[in-house]
């Protein structure tokens, strides 16, 4: 089995994020890091490989991003991926969810994976959906927010929390699974693995190499457009009570709760 893990380089959680008012896009100038949810996806891939229920020939890290994204790939490889693929092309800049999903599906197609794993969300996009978009293009079954994967009889038995509680779903391969952070505790890379990461094979691909129609990606190929940015609605200043007579205070609180239908 070949597992592809989709990873993304995102601004580090500690960096204050801001939108560049000129491009209406996220300012990616500061520190970047491998999307934390993707480390869980890599760990899941490694656990499937080490679990032995299905023989895994290779785990491949795949990313779409600017040149700096190679760092995310190095990290992914340090965490256990055997090699990586970097889809980089100026034509992709400014792609929205629709365009990104299409582009990722195309590069994954060129790898013919049996299983695609990815983190359920990225720190910068806040979209939670790319896995489902990619799966439809690849014509594979898909689940998101998965917190448990067991491999049995060549199928995946997955658990995830949906609207009404926990669902257990059996998925046939090939499939696309997005994982939540509760699924596992990612390992730390060993110093040897970190130092050896740069030597693992890294293939750089452009849109033409994987059959991406440039007209469907980038800002021009996107189907949504950010029109304006506004500050969030101002929260009305709250009321403050000083407790002098506790019985009175409690009465006031109960009234307040009642007014808002909270009790």
């Amino acid at each position, binding site marked *: 089995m070949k597992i592809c893990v989709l990873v993304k380089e995102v601004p*580090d*959680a*500690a*960096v*204050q994020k801001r939108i560049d008012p000129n491009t209406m896009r996220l300012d990616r100038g*500061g*520190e970047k*890091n491998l999307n934390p949810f993707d480390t869980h996806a890599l760990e899941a891939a490694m656990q499937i490989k080490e679990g032995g229920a299905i023989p895994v020939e290779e785990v491949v890290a795949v990313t779409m991003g600017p040149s700096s994204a190679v760092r995310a790939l190095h990290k992914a490889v340090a965490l256990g991926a055997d090699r990586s693929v970097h889809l980089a092309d100026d034509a992709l800049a400014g792609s929205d969810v629709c365009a990104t999903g299409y582009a990722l599906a195309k590069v994954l197609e060129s790898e013919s994976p049996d299983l695609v794993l990815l983190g359920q969300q990225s720190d910068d996009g806040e979209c939670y959906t790319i896995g489902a978009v990619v799966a439809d293009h690849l014509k594979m079954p898909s689940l998101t927010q998965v917190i448990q994967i067991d491999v049995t009889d060549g199928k995946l038995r997955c658990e995830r929390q949906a609207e009404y509680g926990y669902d257990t779903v059996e998925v046939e391969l090939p499939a696309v699974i997005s994982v939540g952070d509760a699924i596992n*505790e*990612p*390992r*730390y*890379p*060993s*110093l*040897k693995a*970190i*130092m050896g990461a740069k030597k693992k094979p890294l293939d750089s691909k452009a849109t033409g190499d994987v059959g991406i129609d440039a007209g469907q990606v980038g800002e021009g190929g996107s189907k949504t457009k950010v029109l304006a940015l506004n500050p969030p609605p101002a929260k009305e200043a709250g009321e403050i009570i000083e407790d002098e007579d506790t019985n009175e205070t409690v009465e006031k609180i109960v009234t307040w709760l009642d007014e808002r239908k909270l009790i």
Partner: protein
Amino acid sequence: MPAVAPSEFPPPFDSNDVIGPPTDAPEDRIEVGVAIVGGGPAGLACANKVLQLLEDEPELTEKLGEVPVAVIEKGKVAGAHLLSGANMKPSAMEELFPDLPKEEWPVYQEVTKDAVYLLTSKAALPLKPMPPNFKNHGNYVTSVSKLARFLAEKAEEAGAYILSETAATKLLVEDRIVKGVRSGDRGRGREGQELANFEPGSDVVAKATVLAEGTVGHLTYAAYDYFDMHGADPMRWELGVKEVWEVKEPLDRVIHTMGWPLRKSPRFNEFGGSFIYPMGEDKICIGLVAGLDYTDATFSVHDALQLLKTHPFIKKLIDGGKRVAWGAKTIPSGGYFAMPKRLAVPGMMIAGDAASMVNVPTLKGVHYAMHAGMYAAEAIVESLKQDVDSVNFEAYDDKVRNSLIEKEIKQSRNMRQPFSKGFFVGGAIVSAMTVTKGAFPGGHWKQEHDSEVEMDIGRAGDTYPKADNELTFNKLDSVFLSGNATRDDAPNHVRVQTHVPREIAQTWVSMCPAQVYEIPEDQLESGAAEVDVHVTASNCVQCGAITAKGGRLTLPEGGDGPLYQET
């Protein structure tokens, strides 16, 4: 209650725990040519210089193997844990990158105007003529955090391996020769137990090891004990808390202030001042630095900085602006007499702040650190060229002693001490020293370790303003701004005794800019003479102040701590 010194309650820490032989099987050890601990100006200048010199030494390069230079850095990236003023003298950058035009330097601007003010609670009196040690014409305002990122990028381009998120927790020594360092374990829980994703550290063995750990060198100070390298005076420190502000009006000059809110009387021993530097057209930085040998247990540099900002002169400079960064870090202030008696032992050299290479009166240390790193590089290549198994790097010691580093720091060797006599007397004495280049009054003004100062609960705490979240901010909000992302259930890396006299506990509570220490509320109210100290290690920004004041900062897991961008 009688005043009491923190040194009477030494931390539960033994240097011998961090020194030992390699323990990995030989085939598991990671072999590198030169191992440099610390991705700061000293370490990265060393890395760059070694690789530059190796370009002309193909034979030696081959002998050094696959990884000729490895830089071990505990922060998320090089620069994540760095904070300083800073006004950098250009000499080191010019020497390291002679062909790089100044437009491409990671600096904000050249200093063209300087001013020094003596502050009172209401006024700002310009000091003219300006005390000569504050002259900064020809120097460059820079952020060491940015500088390190730049130097790291250059070093990587040249072939160095920058191993960030890696703590060097043990110095590998065999037969009294330094063989390398061991990286820290990752994935231990609060009690030190191994968690599910536990990954042990690795032995990194090298032909030459350079310790460039900065202001509170974890391995460096253990090495001082082990190899008997302590200088004539103990190390001592000042604590700086710094903020970066986006402002409407650009600042046209570098400003230093003395006086308020630090108190003049020798009883309080509050030495230091503030700095306000322009950072391009739209930002300035403002910081307050104070010696950690103050006597009032309620003194807090962070809060004194907040108070400083309320001064009309200062407030005007940041009016209508927005705070965008905050950080804290100590700076070694022991000067010449605190430098170790040897800078090199078999297999190892020490460079930069960790070796007290800071000229306190002129506030210079960045270029000394870089020069020292370059001398170390030269000594390494010269020695290993002759014999790749040589462990003799004493030439490094000679280079530093014969250089400007030694000469200039020596001139200021007694300039910090007179201030314990109070601001004015101290100022007068130091003026005499400056004019005579350190010759008069001469001798050796002995210093004591900051933790030996007796602490008393005073009134400094009463003067600090409550946070208004526009001009002034509390510690926790500030820690958040530093990008601190330390794991909640990580083991506690701060070594202090946890049941101490109230004066000591209060000292730590007020001193720490990140609110790591707390006295339980009920004990505070009861007025008990001895109290417990609760340590929230995950707030720690690793400034190092606790090492100065009776505790010991050890290393949390690699990658923990702040993510400074432009401090």
